[in-house]
């Protein structure tokens, strides 16, 4: 199983179209290995992106440099996956 230890999901709120376009630039940076759960669409609509641990610092610096607000939606994706697996195992056992 691929593990997602340290991966965070950020919820980004772009205040205007220029900020939406800036976030779209992130989509083109393949080396960051970003996984957009909710793509950039319109100003005010949340953008959710899973960020692998090695890219977290770069992404946060990019967002802060362009004054784009965000919050950490999921602190560690792997913890949620383990919780999900445990629930499935428990359900089978029942």
């Amino acid at each position: 199983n691929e593990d997602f230890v340290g991966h965070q999901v950020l919820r980004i709120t772009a205040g205007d179209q220029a900020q939406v376009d800036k976030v779209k630039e992130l989509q083109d940076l393949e080396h960051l290995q970003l996984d957009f759960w909710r793509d950039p669409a319109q100003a005010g609509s949340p953008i959710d992106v899973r960020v692998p641990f090695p890219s977290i610092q770069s992404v946060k610096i990019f967002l802060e440099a362009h004054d784009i607000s965000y919050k950490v939606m999921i602190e560690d994706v792997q913890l949620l996956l383990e919780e999900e697996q445990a629930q499935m195992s428990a359900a089978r056992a029942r």
Partner: protein
Amino acid sequence: VRAQSTSTFNYATYHTLEEIYDFMDLLVAENPQLVSKIQIGNTFEDRPIYVLKFSTGGDNRPAIWIDTGIHSREWVTQASGVWFAKKITEDYGQDPTFTAILDNMDIYLEIVTNPDGFAFTHSTNRMWRKTRSRTPGSLCIGVDPNRNWDAGFGQPGASSNPCSETYRGKSANSEAEVKSIVDFVQDHGNFKAFISIHSYSQLLLYPYGYTADPVPDKEELDQLAKSAVNALSSLYGTKYKYGSIIKTIYQASGGTIDWSYNQGIKYSFTFELRDTGFRGFLLPASQIIPTAQETWLALLTIMEHTLNHPY
């Protein structure tokens, strides 16, 4: 451990592909007069692609198509599809509105629309979204099956890069998972509603995604979407937005319901199910049944409208 009947099946947890396929067999065995299982094709990795047909008789009746899980990591959709299947067998003969629908129309439900991807989410990568087909000349795997339909294929709103999550594929219908549905729906020829279910972000969308041109039936679809969303929200207060794909989210070409609408299936909709508690694709299993329950109310609204507005 396998469920002995669909009554003891646990609808409030996520299941593997094998468990869901076993469930389908149980449902057919328990309801042979109402439910049958049809294999419409095989996936890239040669898994069978199944559709459940719910029918009370008749020959090639007007029909409703529902698919869940074309994006494999959206687990609440496959789980909701399982719940819908059971709900159909429970409500027929009990709920007058639904009974009238099934007395006049057939329902086809594809619970695992992307079996290879779904199996991969269980075995290897929980975050997998695409199919598992290979692209010659690329190390990257998979095509976004919601960009592979013959509706504005190749236009802006999909990627030509095989490594992208929205890779459209080398040509329309290149994916067996898509082509199987295309062939089945075209051979059938009498679908009147086509509903494709995704998660998350709480939206009910109608065509188009590939063009900003409004569909000819925009007013009716908009009103119907409004009614469906109101019905959905009436249960737990879940808030949905509705509208055309391109106006509500962004331009997306090669999408499922743009194709179905262009085939003449007027009542074409796509759902994005719950996003509760900021968990995204990792929606807690405790949310499966509430999500399915509220979505069912919206589905009923669309199905009833389809029954009452023949075309």
